[in-house]
């Protein structure tokens, strides 16, 4: 379970991120017209992530090869790709909302996995689940600390009035 959620899915997601340059520039420009401020892409990625966070989906992907195939296709294509595609276009506020929700999700899932008396996935043991819960809390805490540090002391070239506004930062 830990391996699946914290290794496999992130790797698949990364694969999606690497796919962006493969897409023809024309197509990307087209899509950008439907993705003002990166909102559509981030919403798509969020929804797809929500689906793969359901214990049921994770379970099914280890028992049903069709679902597994779906996972191998959709995590890169519906999460990684739109994320990487839309992120540079997202402004401060859109990113802020997304990151807040992202961090909150780690805390929620971590908490859930720690306290759930039942195994949420039939294919994984309770110990595994609780260990994953702890990892997720640590990851959430780490992300939060990193964000706080960045905001407090970091460098935001893109937001300074001199540089071109809207560039990734």
């Amino acid at each position, binding site marked *: 379970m830990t391996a699946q959620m914290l290794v496999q899915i992130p790797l698949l997601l990364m694969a999606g991120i690497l796919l962006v340059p493969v897409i023809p520039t024309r197509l990307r420009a087209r899509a950008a*017209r439907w993705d003002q401020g990166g*909102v*559509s892409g981030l*919403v*798509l990625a969020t*929804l797809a992530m929500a*689906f793969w966070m359901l214990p049921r989906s994770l379970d099914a992907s280890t*028992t049903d090869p069709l679902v597994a195939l779906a996972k191998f296709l959709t995590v890169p294509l519906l999460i990684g790709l739109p994320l990487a595609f839309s992120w540079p*276009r997202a402004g401060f*506020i859109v990113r802020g909302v997304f990151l807040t929700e992202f961090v909150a999700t780690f805390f929620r899932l971590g908490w859930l996995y720690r306290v759930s008396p039942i195994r949420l996935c039939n294919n994984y043991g309770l110990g595994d689940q609780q260990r994953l819960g702890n990892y997720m809390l640590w990851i959430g805490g780490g992300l939060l600390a990193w964000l706080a540090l960045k905001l407090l002391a970091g460098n935001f070239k893109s937001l300074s009035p001199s540089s071109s506004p809207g560039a990734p930062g």
Partner: protein
Amino acid sequence: MMTTSDHMSAPTAVLRTVVLTVGLLLVGVAGLGVATDGFHAFTTETARRVAVHRNPPAVPATVPLVNQDGVHFTLADLQGKWVLVDFVYTRCMTICTVLGADFAQLERELAEPIAQDRIQLLSISFDLARDTPAELASYLTRFRGAGPGWQAAIPLTDDGLARLEDAFGITVIPDKMGGYTHNAAIHLVDPTGRLVDIFDLGQRDQVRAALQRELAS
């Protein structure tokens, strides 16, 4: 933000984005709804229950089994009775003992209908490698489940076990200490051989109530 790049098309781009986002949200939420049986079943375990309630599946009636006395039988032989089924392995020191205690208690509480041959309790082992009729017998005596109302059995073949696990929705994973991790529940099979309900460990009262309701009607 203050994107200047596609300045000309900005208003239409906003409009398109809004349309697309709303569309994605609708599709997405609907999709999640379908994937969770209308936001009811987030885990495989609940999904299994929802599915059983909605559409009781027939259990494999022809899988050859052998019981604690070495007698061969199939689930078809039990038709005509209400059967409570659980899945265990006899060396289990954790939830299987809870299941065992539940069954022992139920056997006592339901003594009357059991005596009338209207109810049967059946523990099926999934540990084909180690469990034998003798192990099953000692498992039963451990819980004082000596009477004919509670039987234990092992499938004779791997294929038979797989069909049973599939029908009842049992997932068994070997742990690293020679044991297994598995989901535990009490399954109710009706006299026509359909799986009609699934209960959690410890839900003895609900099991009894359901049976009493069925037997009275």
